[in-house]
C-alpha cells in the first residue's frame, strides 16, 4: 500500500500527515506536489489541511477545480481509500465527492480546541477497525467547518449511515455545548455512498502520538492506521 499526501499551494498540514504516515505508522508514503500527482501510482490518498490557494473565493474551492482532483476522482471511483482532513474535507465537498457544504463557524471566529467525536459507523474504509460508538479525542482548528445540508440530504445521509463522526459531550452524547462550530446534527465527518471517501474537520494527525494529546492517547492514529490496507 502506497499513500500520496497531496500538497497544494497553501496546504499546511501536509508535513504533519506525512510525519505520522512515515515515522509513526512506518507506511510507504510520498509527499506529492499537486501538479505532479498521478493517482495510478498510489493505493490511497490524503488531502491534508491548510489554506489551499489561501482559501480565496471560498475554502477549498480553487483546489477542487485543480487537475489533481481529477486524479482523486478516478481513485475514488476505483474504490481506493480517500481521506480529506479539515481543508481536505472542504476540498472534497467543493469537488462534489462528498455532499453538503461547510460554512463559516457559528461563532464567526477560528476555533482551535480539542473535541470529542463519536464514531457513528464502522462501515467505512477508515473506521472498520473502530467500534461504532467509540469516542475519540482530536483537535479541530478551522474557521469554516459548520456542516450544513438540506433536510432531505441530511436525512438521507443519516439513513445511509454516511455520517461517520459526530461531536459529543463528556457523556458521549451529541449536544449543543459539544458542538464547536454549529454543524447540523453535530456532524464532524461524513463518507460517500461507496464508503471509501471520508472527510472530517478534526485532525487525526495531531492526535496520533500520546505526547501531543492532553489525554495521552493516540486516538487519531486509529483512523490513519486504515491506510495500512
Amino acid at each position, binding site marked *: 500500500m502506497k499513500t500520496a499526501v497531496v500538497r497544494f*499551494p497553501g496546504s*499546511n498540514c501536509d508535513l504533519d500527515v506525512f510525519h505520522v504516515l512515515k515515522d509513526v505508522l512506518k507506511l510507504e508514503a510520498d509527499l506529492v506536489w499537486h501538479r505532479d500527482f498521478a493517482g495510478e501510482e498510489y493505493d490511497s490518498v490524503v488531502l491534508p489541511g491548510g489554506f489551499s490557494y*489561501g482559501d480565496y473565493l471560498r475554502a477549498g474551492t480553487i483546489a477542487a477545480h485543480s487537475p489533481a482532483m481529477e486524479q482523486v476522482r478516478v481513485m475514488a471511483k476505483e474504490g481506493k481509500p480517500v481521506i480529506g482532513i479539515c481543508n481536505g474535507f472542504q476540498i472534497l465537498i467543493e469537488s462534489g465527492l462528498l455532499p453538503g457544504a461547510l460554512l463559516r463557524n457559528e461563532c464567526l471566529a477560528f476555533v*482551535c480546541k480539542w473535541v470529542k467525536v463519536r464514531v457513528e459507523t464502522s462501515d467505512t474504509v477508515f473506521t472498520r477497525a473502530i467500534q461504532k460508538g467509540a469516542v475519540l479525542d482530536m483537535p479541530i482548528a478551522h474557521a469554516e467547518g459548520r456542516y450544513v445540508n438540506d433536510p432531505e440530504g441530511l436525512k438521507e445521509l443519516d439513513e445511509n449511515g454516511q455520517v461517520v463522526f459526530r461531536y459529543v459531550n463528556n457523556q458521549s452524547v451529541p449536544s449543543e455545548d459539544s458542538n464547536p462550530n454549529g454543524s447540523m446534527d453535530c456532524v464532524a465527518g461524513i463518507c460517500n455512498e461507496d464508503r471509501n471517501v471520508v472527510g472530517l474537520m478534526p485532525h487525526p494527525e495531531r492526535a496520533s502520538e500520546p505526547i501531543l494529546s*492532553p489525554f495521552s492517547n493516540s486516538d487519531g492514529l486509529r483512523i490513519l492506521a486504515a491506510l495500512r490496507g
Partner: protein
Amino acid sequence: MNIPRLEATRLKVNLTFDELIEARKRLGREPNEVELGMIDVMWSEHCSYKSSRRLLQKLPKSGKRVIVGPGYDSGVVDIGDGDVIAFKIESHNHPSAIEPYNGAATGIGGIIRDILCMNCRPIGLLDSLRFGSLDSGHSRWLFNNVVRGIADYGNCTGIPTVSGEIEFDESFETNCIVNVACIGQGRAETLTLGRMDNPGDIIVLVGGATGRDGVHGVTFASRVITEESELDRPAVQIGDPFTKKLVIEATLEALRTGKVTAVKDLGGGGLTCALSEMSSKGGTGVQVDLEKIHVREEGMSPYELLLSESQERILFTVAPEGEEVFKILRKWGLAYSVIGKVTASGRIVAKFRGEVVVDIPSELLTNSPIPRRIARRPKTTREKRAKAQSMSDLSQALCNLLSMPNIACKEYVYRQYDHEVGVRTILKPGDADAAVLRVIGADKAVAVKVDCNSSYCFLDPYNGHALAVAEAARNVVATGAVPIAMTDCCNFGNPEKPEVYWQFKEAIDGMGYMLRGLNIPCVGGNVSFYNEDERTGRAVKPSTAIVMLGLIERLNLVTSMALKRAGESIVLIGKTFRELGGSQYSRLTGNQHSNPPRAVASRERSSIRAVIEAIRGGYVTAAHDCSEGGLAVALAEMAIKGNLGLTVDLGAIPHKASMKPDEVLFSESSARFILTTTEEHAGKLLSLVRGRGVAAAKIGEVSTLDFKVVTENETLICCPIERLRNAWQTAIPELVKVN
C-alpha cells in the same frame, strides 16, 4: 553658511539639521532626492537604532550555546546534536495603533522572514500585547482586531501561535503595544547569514510585487502618534499570508539547493535597507537596475521603488549558476526579478532608465551618526500613602483578582489561534507558564515564553526590567527547562525626552544585571521608541517584552501547572515579603502600596537551580511560577487547571509575623515557585531545595474538595473550584461582549 538645499526638495525628511550636514559631508556632495530619502529612512530610529545602539552593547551576548548573536536577522542558539533554534521578536506598535488588523498581521509577516533568513523553519509564534482598559470602546476595537489579524495571518501560514501575554493598562489606550516573536528550527551546518560576501552573485527579488504601500513606514514608526496619524494609514502595509506561505516553502526549498548564498527580509526600509545592510555586512556593494523590479503599479519612481515596504517580499543572492533556484520559484508560482549583482565597490549603485540615480556608500546608510541623548531621572512627587485597606472577604478578593483582565483566562484569544499545527506543541496555551515544543525525532524539547510587567517597569525601570527577565526565566524553568538564551523588544516613549531616555537606560542596566546573574545571553533585540500620544503628551509605561528560550533535555522532564492527584503535597519555594507595590491586588483595592517586589539575582538563581534539580530528580508533579496576583492566584490557577481542590495553611508559608493574611496571599514577591510532589518524595524535595540554601516549605495538600486557605483557628478562603473557574474564565468574554 553651508545649509543643504533642502528647501529646494519637495520631500519632507525627518533628518535633523546636524544629520543633514553629516550626510553631505560623508557623501562629499549634495545627496539627490532619492539618496536623501534613503538616508532619511536608514537613519531613522527604526532602522538605525541610533538612540539605543550604544546602550544595548551593555547586555551580555556570549555563551557556549550562542551561534549567532545580535546584529543579524535573528539570534541562533545550539540545542545539541547539531540542532539549532533561531528566534527574534519585533514590534509593530505604530501600524497596529492606526490599523490594528493589518498592522498586527504584517508584524507576523516580518518576523517570519527574519527566521527564514537563517535557513530555519518557523515553528512557533508568540505575541506580547498591551492595550488600554477593556472598558474603553477604542481599546476593545484595537484588541479584537489585533487578535483577529494575528489569527488570520498566523493560521494561514501554518505556524502555530503557541504562547503570549496580554496586559491591560490605561497608558496603552492610544498606543497599543504589539510585539510578535517567532522561533524556528534548523541545522547548524546549513545556517545562512543575511550578508553579501561574494561579488558576482545575482540579486533576486522574490515574492510580492512592489507597490506604493508602506513608503516611509519606518519614518512614521519613528514619530509620536498625533491627530494626523490617521493620515498615515497608507503607510501601513497590507499582508497576504497565502503568498507568505509560498515564500516560506519556496525559500526553504531553494536554500536546500546550496545555490542561495544569502536571504534577507524586506521589511522596514524596503529594498534600501536590505541592499545596504547585506552589502555593508559583507564589505561589498551592489549594482541594481530598478526597472527590473516586478511592480504592481504603473509609473513608480526610483524613490518609491527603493523605499516601498510592500509585504511578502524577500531578497536572495544566488550563485551565478543557480538556474535550479529559479525553477523552484516557478514551481511555487512566485514572481521574481533578477535586479542586479553584488559588486566589490562598497557602494549602492542604482540605475533607472539607463541613468544612475543612486550612487552612495553602503556603510554611509547603515552607520548613522549617534545623537546625544540626555538621561534625567523624572521628578517623582511622593504621594502621601493612605493606610492600606484590606478586603475582609478574602474569597471574594480572590475571585475579583481572578476576573481582572490581566489575570483572567485568555482562552478567548488563544482559541482563535491554531496552536497545534506542526505537531510539536506538547504543552499548549494555558497548560503551563511557557509553551513547550518538541524536537521531532529527538528526546528533547524547547520551552518558550514572552513576558513583562509594565507596572513594575514604570515604578522602577531598573528593578522592573530585572524582574521581567527573572519571571520569563522562571516561566520556562517551571516547564522543566533550563533557560539558555533570550531576546527582547523594548517599548518606550520619545527618547529625545530626558526622562524617557533615563527609563531606557535604567531598563537596559536592569536587564543586564539579571541576565548576568542568571548567566543568560541576549542574542538579539528590537527597540520601539515614540510610543507616545501627542495629544496627552503621555508615553506608554516602559515595557520590554522578554522572550526566554529554555531547553528541556529529556521529554520526561516536561512539567505542567495542573494539580495532578489528591493527597499530593504542595511546596512553596522562596520567601514571601510585603511587596504589593504595582501588584494586581493594589490595583483592585486602589491602595498605593509603595514596595514593588525587589529583583535580587542571587535569589532568583538559587530558586531556579533548586527547581531545575528537583524536576530532574523526578520529584515534581506540577510546577507554577508565582507572579501577578501572588500565591493565592497561582494556587487557584493550578486548582482550576487540575479540577482539584486544595487546603493551604497560612501559618506554614514563610513570612514575617507582622504581615496581614491578604498581604501574604497577594504579595507578588519574586523568586518563588509552587511545586506539588507525592507524599513519598516530599521529604527529599524539601531537603534538596533547602540544601541549596533556598527557603522551602510544605504549605498544604491537594484535595478533591474546595479551595481552602486556613489558619490555626479560622478559614480565610473557602471556594468551590467552579466559583473560581467561573470568575477566571468568563471575565474577558464578558468584557469584550459590550459594544
